[in-house]
């Protein structure tokens, strides 16, 4: 509708139909984009610097999260490889003595762990190996000497204390402890033999040789033949141990409420084994045993991953904040230097919103381009870090695709204040400044 006012018509626009308003809206967006592209093209160096800044920070965020994910997975895998399939079973203290249902089966001593514990463990489908352990030193303080009547080893000042440990051969297999297979079966009997850890051998002045025949140590005045040596590494921690047959240790201590069982499950079956092991060993009183759940290991793994992700995220976030400040500063300078232009735009009919939209769109476009660059940097960095460290590259396409969106968000936040500032410039004053 047009109202004719003499020779000077003043158009009064009728309410535009919805389709027309939509087209007009699209055209306005196209105008802003065209305008911004011209602006960026004519200030290439500034635009390029801002794109690189966003790219670096976005890349740093994504790469650090990506690399930490890999590292966390590697750590988790390492933990899993060493401990995930292991279950430790300990006796639940009751305060009323051993007195187990299986007590009769332990020849002279009332025990909680039955004498056929290893066989019972072997009856569980998913068990690889398992065996008992009793720390004799903690319960009975045996005296260990190199020679009969000699000085006790491991009690003097400055001496490494020796641990007298009684185990079955199944325990050493479950712990993956290095031991001579030809002699470890002796641990399942009652013969007075020992295996020595490297620290214990040194402390007892026992030479570590392939054939230890004839070598002896004395425990509580009784001779024990040294039948081999065990490695100190691994979960058994036998570095300074004098390892004797489980039955002899049990006889020495007289009870097994400090004993434990180590069970190695087949790969991936740790949780299942942990859930049934007490029932399998003591079906009459499973409550007397406590199996340490592998779930705690999973929690540990998740904890490591979470902490590393948080660390990376915080590092990246700090970089992002710095980038936002950098871009915001640059755009504020741009707003100031373009005051006249802003005034001109307002004089030509642009509204405050249109003027602000130009700066918002500029920030978002720069952010988007920077995000693309950052995603490329992140993908390259993650793959490179994996290659250099021999890790398996973990590259999440979804996470990489988020890069441009992060860039847009950074650009939007960074340009919000400059855009508002530009929108509030008085056109009357702006057109007078040069």
């Amino acid at each position, binding site marked *: 509708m047009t109202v004719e006012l003499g020779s000077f018509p003043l158009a009064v626009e009728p309410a535009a139909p919805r389709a027309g308003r939509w087209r007009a809206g699209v055209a306005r967006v196209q105008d802003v984009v065209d305008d911004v592209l011209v602006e960026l093209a004519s200030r290439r160096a500034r635009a390029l610097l801002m794109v690189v800044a966003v790219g670096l920070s976005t890349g740093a965020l994504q790469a650090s999260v990506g690399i930490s994910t890999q590292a966390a997975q590697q750590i988790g895998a390492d933990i899993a490889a060493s401990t995930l399939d292991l279950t430790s079973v300990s006796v639940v203290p009751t305060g009323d003595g051993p007195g187990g249902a299986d007590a009769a089966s332990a020849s002279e001593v009332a025990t909680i762990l039955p004498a056929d514990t290893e066989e019972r463990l072997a009856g569980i489908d998913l068990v690889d190996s398992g065996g008992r352990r009793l720390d004799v030193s903690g319960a009975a303080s045996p005296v260990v000497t190199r020679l009969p009547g000699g000085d006790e080893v491991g009690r003097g000042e400055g001496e490494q204390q020796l641990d007298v440990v009684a185990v079955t051969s199944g325990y050493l297999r479950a712990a993956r402890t290095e031991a001579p297979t030809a002699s470890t079966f002796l641990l399942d009997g009652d013969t007075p033999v020992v295996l020595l850890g490297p620290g214990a051998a040194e402390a007892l002045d026992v030479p570590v040789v392939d054939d230890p025949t004839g070598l002896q140590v004395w425990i509580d005045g009784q001779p024990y033949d040294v039948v081999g040596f065990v490695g100190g590494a691994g979960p058994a921690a036998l570095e300074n141990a004098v390892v004797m047959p489980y039955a002899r240790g049990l006889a020495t201590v007289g009870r097994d409420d400090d004993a434990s069982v180590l069970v190695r499950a087949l790969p991936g079956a740790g949780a299942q084994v942990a859930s049934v092991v007490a029932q399998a060993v003591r079906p009459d009183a499973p409550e007397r045993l406590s199996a340490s759940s592998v779930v705690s290991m999973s929690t540990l793994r998740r904890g490591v991953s979470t902490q590393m992700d948080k660390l990376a995220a915080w590092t990246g976030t700090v970089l992002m904040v710095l980038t936002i400040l950098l871009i915001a500063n640059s755009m504020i300078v741009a707003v100031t230097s373009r005051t006249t232009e802003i005034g001109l735009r307002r004089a*030509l*009919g642009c509204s405050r919103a249109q003027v602000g939209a130009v700066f918002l769109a500029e920030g978002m476009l720069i952010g988007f381009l920077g995000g693309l660059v950052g995603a490329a940097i992140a993908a390259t960095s993650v793959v490179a870090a994996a290659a250099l460290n021999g890790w398996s590259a973990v590259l999440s396409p979804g996470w990489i695709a988020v890069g441009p969106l992060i860039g847009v968000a950074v650009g939007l936040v960074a340009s919000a204040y400059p855009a508002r500032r530009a929108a509030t410039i008085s*056109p*009357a004053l702006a057109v007078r400044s040069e």
Partner: protein
Amino acid sequence: MSALDLSGVTKTYLVDPPVEALRGVDLTVEPGERVAVLGRSGAGKSTLLNIVGLLDEPTSGTYLLAGQDVSASGSAERDRLRAETFGFVFQESHVLGHRTAAQNVWLGLMASGVARRERDVRIAEVLERVGLTHRADSLGRLLSGGEKQRLAVARAVVARPRVLLADEPTGNLDDANATSVLDLFDEQAAQGVAVVVITHDARTAQWADRVVTLVDGRLASVPHDVSWLDRVGAP
């Protein structure tokens, strides 16, 4: 129907102490009329131009634009009217040096509502009219002073305004370029566009159909013969 009609318009800047830039200005301009506004620095010329061009609001008084009272129009309405009704030419031209001549003219259409497909035609048309077709792709900073001012006129008229406001449009130009710009204004006036020019230049004042002068924020008509300006110098 007058193109614009100001009645008792005042403008006071609330600084310390308050400055009364306009003190009851009455001004009527008809379509196609060429009006020159004279006045010393600080007389209120730019304030008047800003109020007429809806860049600023009067403190009091009535402003009818083509019969419509715009004295108390809201910001959005003023933006729309500015885009549809006014063209501005400034003394400094305000040509954006990092944009080409065509891109500078494009700015004049950005808020105009002219369909995108028509814009290139309009831009080519108006550049031809101001004699800058051959400079369409030249960056603004590479244009001469005269070319810049002609480009500013092109940008001001590309949206086909009904009122053309110019602040010292010939102040920085030599005679030939000043004549060229005034000729472009004549073309606009001939098409019914009301042209209001703030000037110190005697020849521009002579060119106008009517001359008014601002003294201490008050407007007065003066004889059309302003040859006295040449004798005493610019006010």
